[in-house]
């Protein structure tokens, strides 16, 4: 029994890792080798593809652009979601359930539906091709997500804590910032993780709402496809580099992650 389990798990993890290994393998080969000789490991190990990304203009800018709007989005989402989640977890008010459902439908709505109006709206407001445009558009799904996750964690904090703090003469803002937020730290960690993740991986909106100045890395990556064909090594190297922020974030929240999933709020 235990053996079958182990084998099953190892097979699954191999299935997950082999495509990633192949990506890394290709990124370390010159194009001549990639197209010329099929090999399970790099025979002429080279870091040229990475060197090109770090030295050529545009690539670094693309990474930076992506990180800027992802961080903006995360900050905005968490800031506005905190009080809202508190309201949902502590109070009953008119229309609360419908409001909550409406928020969730935005998490479920396909971004393609909102594509054209976003484009028009942001051009009218004058923020097209700015980082804030993508950050605001991503709020569409990251705010509902943050509210959903945080509400779950806040409901787990007993209400007696709020009441005791008021009796001790804490004002609401002081209580919220100095007592309540530290209590749900791990919840905020999980919410940050998911806001970061969904904004980082999204392509359609980020691509449509930017043209030059705020162009994200996923668009810059298409530069490796030119008239002469695809520069596979360069494409693979750029892909490897996009895995790093995600891997780092996973590593830092690995303990909170299981708890976040335990609440089923993703």
């Amino acid at each position, binding site marked *: 029994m235990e053996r079958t389990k182990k084998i099953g798990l190892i097979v699954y993890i191999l299935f997950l890792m082999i495509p990633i290994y192949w990506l890394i393998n290709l990124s370390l080969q010159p194009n001549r080798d990639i197209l010329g000789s099929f090999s399970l490991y790099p025979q002429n190990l080279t870091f040229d593809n990475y060197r090109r990304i770090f030295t050529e203009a545009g690539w670094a800018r693309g990474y930076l652009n992506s990180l800027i709007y992802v961080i903006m989005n995360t900050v905005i989402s968490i800031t506005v979601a905190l009080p809202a989640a508190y309201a949902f977890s502590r109070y009953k008010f*008119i*229309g609360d*359930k*419908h409001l909550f459902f409406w928020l969730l439908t935005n998490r479920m709505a396909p971004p393609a539906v909102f594509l054209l109006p976003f484009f*028009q*709206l942001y*051009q*009218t407001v004058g923020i097209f091709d700015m980082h804030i445009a993508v950050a605001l558009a991503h709020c569409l799904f990251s705010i509902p997500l943050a509210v959903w996750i945080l509400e779950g964690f806040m409901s787990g904090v007993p209400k007696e804590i709020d009441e005791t703090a008021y009796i001790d003469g804490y004002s609401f803002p002081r209580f919220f910032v100095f007592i309540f937020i530290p209590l749900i730290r791990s919840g905020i960690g999980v919410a940050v993780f998911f806001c970061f993740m969904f904004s980082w991986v999204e392509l359609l909106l980020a691509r449509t709402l930017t043209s030059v100045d705020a162009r994200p890395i996923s668009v810059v990556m298409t530069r490796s496809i030119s008239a002469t064909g695809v520069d596979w090594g360069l494409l693979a190297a750029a892909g490897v580099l996009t895995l790093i922020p995600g891997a780092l974030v996973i590593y830092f929240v690995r303990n909170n992650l299981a708890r976040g999933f335990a609440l089923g709020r993703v």
Partner: protein
Amino acid sequence: MDWMVWTLPSALFFATIALMLVGMTIWEVVQPSTFRRGLLPLKTTRGDRLFIALLSSAWFHLGWLGLTDQPVWYMTIFCVIWLAAVLRWG
């Protein structure tokens, strides 16, 4: 506002929805609604019934447009009656 290319019918449509929401809120403040079990197979509040009625109306319209060639407002009239019925007995 120009880029939103408003038309009179769509403006009326959204105004009606907005008025309904305002009306329901005032009604709720004046007289809070209770969970109850009507003809619909689940317990609902007044707001739930409004939502169910509106969503099903939208689907009725789609069905009508997809399956028949009759003018759309036949269905609209039916849906107004449907809305009232769901709110009252649902």
